[in-house]
């Protein structure tokens, strides 16, 4: 890491009615504590959230965009994996 550059952090915010934290952007900060404070100032100014996670961007492992065909295309023709073929009892048939 360049010693003159703060590391990059990814920010996840849980909104007031949300169940999960959603990725909303990134920022630079010297450490986790300051990253949380910066995230508060940058991403929750308009009451967007009630909980913040930050994680160092270099700690995230991402799938290879080049490998998209073998990673994701094989699921394309397995429509039987969607639970749409089952006859549900009338009482629960709103799913």
């Amino acid at each position, binding site marked *: 890491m360049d010693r003159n550059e703060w590391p990059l952090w990814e920010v996840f915010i849980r909104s007031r009615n949300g169940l999960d934290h959603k990725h909303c952007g990134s920022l*630079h900060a010297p450490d986790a*504590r300051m990253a949380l404070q910066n995230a508060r100032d940058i991403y929750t100014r308009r009451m967007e959230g009630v909980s913040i996670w930050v994680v160092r961007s270099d700690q995230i492992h991402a799938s290879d965009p080049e490998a998209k065909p073998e990673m994701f295309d094989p699921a394309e023709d397995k429509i039987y994996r969607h639970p749409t073929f089952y006859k549900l009892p009338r009482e629960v048939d709103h799913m």
Partner: protein
Amino acid sequence: MPDLNIDYLLRLADNPLILGQRLSEWCGHAPVLEEDLALANTALDLIGQARLLLTHAGALEGNGRDEDQLAFLRSEREFRNCTLVELPNGDFARTVLRNFLFSAHQVPLWEGLLGSRDAQLAAIAAKSLKEVRYHLRHAADWVLRLGAGTEESHRRMQAALDYLWPYTTELFAGDAVEEAAAAAGIGLAGSSLQPRWDAAVLPVLQEAALSPPARTPFLSQGKLGVHSEHMGHLLAEMQTMQRAYPGAQW
């Protein structure tokens, strides 16, 4: 309500107003984008507090002055902020250290004013307390990082502390205005806040390897209306629109 208590409210109002004006000078100039936003947020919190307090002071005064007239049409000698908040920003170290020293005073102040007999003031205290608690936390984290950071950041923080420290004496210097406010159950005597301030400030300075200079008899007089040479320049900039276009609105 006697005039002394209006004077007390103006002290409460002018501190955040003037520090908010100072911090807004950083907008677009902070070392990093993230901190630029943090300083602007702090400035907006403080100006918001000042607006409520000035409006309240104007209403109690009963001369029809609103927040704008009190902020933009008073002269230098009529401002009641402590000298600490009007001093130039200096570098980033001095800016965050002043925020730290000031916020450490505002937290126990607003906590105490939650019990004010003035219900409007107690409500303003409740809102402001949440804001200054965050300001204190953020500023303290910077003091720790810069004070115990590199040789250069430590040198700048120590220089900032040497410069600002003498002006903190004024925060705790009592006088007739504060005694009257305390006696009426409206406000607090500044001296009553010092133990809490010491307990918040001294451990952080120690952890940041910063040494406050010895106290001297120097006592700044901003809250009595006797300001430093910097105040006139600050007001000239802050008030220029209302002076040039009286009553202008947008």
